[in-house]
């Protein structure tokens, strides 16, 4: 869950311990650098031995992440990192497994594995760098690009509607759904830690700027002039407040979120929606904010942990099942299996 547990530090590690002898080859100014920095920063604090981290990536700019963390890692094939990670975690539950993926890698070619790993609830961390574009293949629209997006493969505008990753994750029965941004290092660090401490599949959508092919896609959420009115930072048990002077709040009218001005008479912080990470219905409404802009233009974009619940992990359930069968049947000799139950003798 999202409360932070103190873990004894096994060995004093510093962020330098996680920086390998490799040149980082992302474009200058790419948002990926920030994520890498935050990972290097928080990893020494997690109390995990350096050799117990495993990074699994697919293909795409984000997936080069594997090369840049000095631990164990596999740079695999497009879309399949989640599937590979499930095999690692199922067979080696003690490892801390991280998947770094992108909007194309996770939501297009790897869509099936993405939803199933969430549903199966392996205790792994999935960092989805959403830049709403295909970067490595040099700029085609992605499954999160907005309708009408002009790219090399959509010179007249994309005719598709985009996925809403948080909504998709919730629909796939994810037990931890969160969102953060490359340009807010502190927030990202706190979310990454929460993702790590959540026992189960943790989904972190990271808004990541691609200055080369889709510059500024998310600046509205971080630029000084717009940040306060466009971004909502969720905190467990706290009311949904945002705005230049924290003077706006969100109330629920039935299932409809309503933005209210706290300076206006009669509007009190006490009447606002209190964030409850365990509330699946509210999490779905929060995830849906981004698609309600047409009818509800004042709604901000929520960042933080949208949803977090405890459910048994796949690998624990599997281990328990094995233990149960062994305690019931004992471990037979291999010869028993070779002979089976029914044999006969000739001669």
């Amino acid at each position, binding site marked *: 869950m999202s409360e932070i547990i103190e873990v004894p530090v096994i060995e004093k590690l510093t962020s330098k311990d996680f920086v390998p002898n490799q040149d980082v080859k992302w474009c200058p100014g790419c948002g990926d650098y920030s994520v890498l920095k935050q990972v290097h920063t928080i990893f020494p604090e997690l109390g995990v031995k350096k050799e117990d981290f495993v990074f699994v990536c697919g293909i795409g700019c984000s997936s080069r992440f594997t090369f840049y963390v000095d631990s164990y890692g596999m*740079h695999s094939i497009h879309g399949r990192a989640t599937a590979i990670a499930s*095999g690692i975690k199922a067979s080696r539950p003690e490892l801390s497994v991280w998947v770094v993926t992108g909007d194309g890698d996770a939501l297009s070619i790897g869509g099936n594995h993405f939803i*199933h790993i969430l549903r199966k609830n392996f205790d792994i961390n999935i960092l989805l760098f959403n830049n709403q574009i295909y970067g490595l293949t040099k700029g085609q629209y992605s499954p999160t690009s907005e309708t009408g997006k002009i790219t090399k493969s959509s010179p007249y505008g994309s005719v598709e509607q985009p996925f809403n990753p948080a909504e998709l994750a919730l629909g796939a029965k994810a037990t931890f759904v969160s969102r953060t941004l490359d340009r807010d290092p502190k927030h990202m660090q706190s979310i990454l830690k929460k993702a790590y401490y959540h026992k189960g599949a943790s989904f972190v959508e990271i808004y990541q700027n691609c200055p080369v092919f889709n510059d500024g896609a998310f600046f509205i959420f971080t630029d000084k002039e717009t940040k306060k009115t466009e971004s909502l930072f969720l905190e467990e048990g706290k009311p949904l407040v945002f705005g230049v002077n924290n003077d706006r709040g969100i109330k629920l009218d039935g299932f409809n979120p309503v933005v209210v001005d706290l300076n206006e008479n009669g509007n009190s912080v006490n009447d606002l929606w209190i964030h409850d990470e365990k509330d699946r219905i509210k999490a779905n409404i929060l995830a849906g904010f981004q698609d309600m802009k047409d009818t509800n233009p004042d709604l901000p974009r929520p960042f933080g942990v949208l949803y977090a619940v405890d459910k048994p992990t796949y690998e624990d359930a599997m281990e328990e099942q094995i233990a149960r069968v062994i305690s019931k049947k004992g471990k037979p000799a291999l*010869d028993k299996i*070779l002979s089976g139950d*029914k044999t006969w003798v000739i001669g």
Partner: protein
Amino acid sequence: MDTTEPTLHKFDVIEAESVVVRFSGDSGDGMQLTGTQFTDTTAFLGKDLSTFPEFPAEIRAPAGTLAGVSGFQVHFGSKEIFTAGDTYDVLVAMNAAALGNDLKNLKKGGIIITNTAGFDQKNLRLAEYPEGVNPLEDGSLANYQVYKIDVTRLTKDALKDMGLSNKDIERSKNMFVLGVLYWMFDQSPDYTLTFIKEKFSKNPLIAEANIKALKAGLNYGDTTEIFTTRFKINHSNLPTGTYRSITGNHATAIALVAASEKSGLPLFLGSYPITPASDVLHELSKYKEFRVRSFQAEDEIAAVCSAIGASYGGSLAVTSTSGPGMSLKTEAMGLALMLELPLVVLNIQRGGPSTGLPTKTEQSDLLQAMYGRHGESPLPVLASNSPADCFYTVYEACKIAAEHMTPVIVLNDGYIANGSEPWRFPTEEDLEPISVSFTTETNNKDGVFLPYKRDEKLSRPWVKPGTKGLEHRIGGLERENETGDISYEAENHEIMVKLRAAKIEKIADYIPLQTIDTGKENAKVCILGWGSTYGSIKSVSLDLIKEGYDVAHIHLRYLNPFPKNLGELLSGFETILIPEMNNGQLIRLIRDKYLLPAIGLNKIKGLPFTTLEIREKVLELLNK
């Protein structure tokens, strides 16, 4: 019980070396179970045998139709049995469609046992007999011994006071037929009686009904005077030892457990349901007490990818599938090849391409196994030749994968996967060791670990994540020789491609030399086979040699790399015949590698070769 007991009427006793029985009926008639029971009993009584279950493609095709016919063929006898038989001596036809479908392969003069209730107007129409024609009535079966039994009514009579539903009574009629067969072959029903009691232990009424039906069938044979023939088959002269009955898929599953135990590697199976491979997944899912992690993945790609992940983590990792699934796994297999991690890929072949003939057998994925990946990507390929041989081949595949750090493809097929035979199973001690060691210390005196530094087998070290000090990254991008760093350098790529190929070729140094299965070196005709054609080729060769012909049989388990002496061995024969259940695949490899003018014999009907088909071709070549 195998001495002919006194019985209530007179009959002829036919002593036979071997007999083929075909059980045929509607999918709902329980023919697979009946056949399996008959088979197990026969095996238990010391006969050698081989079976061939044939399923319809649909789970429940409309009852009574030709599409719904389900068959189970068993060939058993006192001599060594290698095939399920070209033609049968006895055909059990539970309905008109079964007769219509299977009469063609009944020997002239053979026995037909029918359930007359399955030959009413409706059944005849569904079986596509012309209006007004009933084969049981029109004299068309005059050349056979036909026993017309109203099995349905007799079963009803036998069970009438038990308070069972019509459906439950209907379901017991296969036991009546089995009883008749036990009488006819003078076999004790004890094995089946025990089976019924175990299977229906929670439902004593159903158990009793099945037992009553079985006994009613036996008594029917005994008391009615319609049966004029009874068979007597002596004990087989199989080598002495303890036996069990095994299907290919079952043997495959326990081979994996055995390899896991012998190597000390935990077993992981990533699989997605597909006919005819699902039984491997089913079987392995049972062995939790061996800590088997069977993972039913969301698709074929995830199945192989999860296995790659498990292999990376230090497991003996396996994925099982059939043709279409194989196509889906190819990209990931390329990754495993590049990562140089152990992985066993089981392809239980079926008729292709595309969905093809899911329940029929074929050997048409050999070239795919050899060449079906992009880039230069050779992999070891092995094939099993019989149900029991699946054990040894799959075990060997695990050994090669783990000891040579490579994915290995095993080609089985539907025929041997579902077919069964008696197996003089090994003990744990008999199995060759599988030696695996994980690297825990750097292999470089400068300290920096070299993940692609090779040993004498040309294989790289296997390091489990969690090993302190050896942290490194691997992946699908080309690696620099030794360091494993990403490298786009021209020279390096060529070196790595050649190293990966040489590593696979090197496996030939560790596998046995090819031997001749039957016959002599330099024979006039060599029949060269691979996979499930073993039984038919073996029977033909034995017969022809006995008749004085100069024939030899070589059967390949190792298809890549070939055993080192294969070329030399083959070049000694005047003519090489390669029978394959495909349009000519091994033949291309042989011609390509050894420039030998082999002759193909190809059958692509979703069915195994009959011995006659091979025999005729060999005789044609011998008489040239």
